[in-house]
């Protein structure tokens, strides 16, 4: 009998440990790409997941970082490399290009027209919707620093946090779905 009680206590402890490791109904996504099509897919998945009742966190890193620059935002003083990255990389969602068939911007412009005609939500609309649906956005601090981006030039968004890899890993470890786009 005593043995049984001991076994029960052991089992309870093990169950507690397993439950502690169980993942939440959460989606963690890395947005590495700054291509319009891939960012569009990211936001469609993010807003869709939020609609399904999932918690959603998006981590913007490397080429994904400049997608979150605000169109009318000013950055202040930058060094030469920072200026170069600033000038060459897209300034926000309306500035991103297709990964294929861009054709010096013509393809992207055509795609945007087609999306409008077919009623497909634009990146700007999806970003706003993501904010309404409480999608959390994290920005990689190292990418910001590497490319010389300033916080002043990043969009205003309800839930925006600057972070490093550990924050992503913590969230990913607690998520049933993890995506790298």
């Amino acid at each position, binding site marked *: 009998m005593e043995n049984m009680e001991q076994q029960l206590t052991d089992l309870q402890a093990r169950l507690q440990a397993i439950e502690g490791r169980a993942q939440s109904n959460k989606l963690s996504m890395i947005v590495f790409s700054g291509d319009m099509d891939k960012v569009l897919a990211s936001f469609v*998945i993010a807003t*869709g997941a939020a*609609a*399904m009742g999932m918690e959603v966190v998006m981590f913007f890193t490397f080429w994904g970082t400049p997608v979150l620059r605000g169109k009318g935002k000013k950055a202040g003083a930058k060094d030469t490399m920072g200026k170069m990255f600033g000038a060459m990389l897209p300034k926000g969602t309306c500035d991103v290009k297709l990964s294929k068939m861009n054709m010096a911007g013509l393809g992207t412009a055509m795609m945007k027209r087609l999306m409008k005609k*077919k009623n*497909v939500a634009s990146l700007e609309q999806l970003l706003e919707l993501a904010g309404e649906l409480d999608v959390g956005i994290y920005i990689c601090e190292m990418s910001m620093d590497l490319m010389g981006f300033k916080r002043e030039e990043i969009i205003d968004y309800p839930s925006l946090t600057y972070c490093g890899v550990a924050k992503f890993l913590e969230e990913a470890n607690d998520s049933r779905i993890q995506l790298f786009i």
Partner: protein
Amino acid sequence: MSDAIKADKVLDLKGLPCPMPVVKISKGIKTVEVGQVVEAITSDPGSLADFPAWARTSGNEIMETIQDNGEIRFFVRRKA
């Protein structure tokens, strides 16, 4: 056409492609009480797979699906 189910609210989602139908029903269902019914009308064929998936995941119930001339009418009961 079956009109046996009475909807407490109607959502017209015609012309909206993915992901908007699912986003709109998830918002719309929260505007009615638990037990009440929302009728969502879409024209997106993808929603035939998406609405049941959304319902299973979010814990709501698709009571009936009617396809009619390119329109899809979902009767969704709020359960959660």
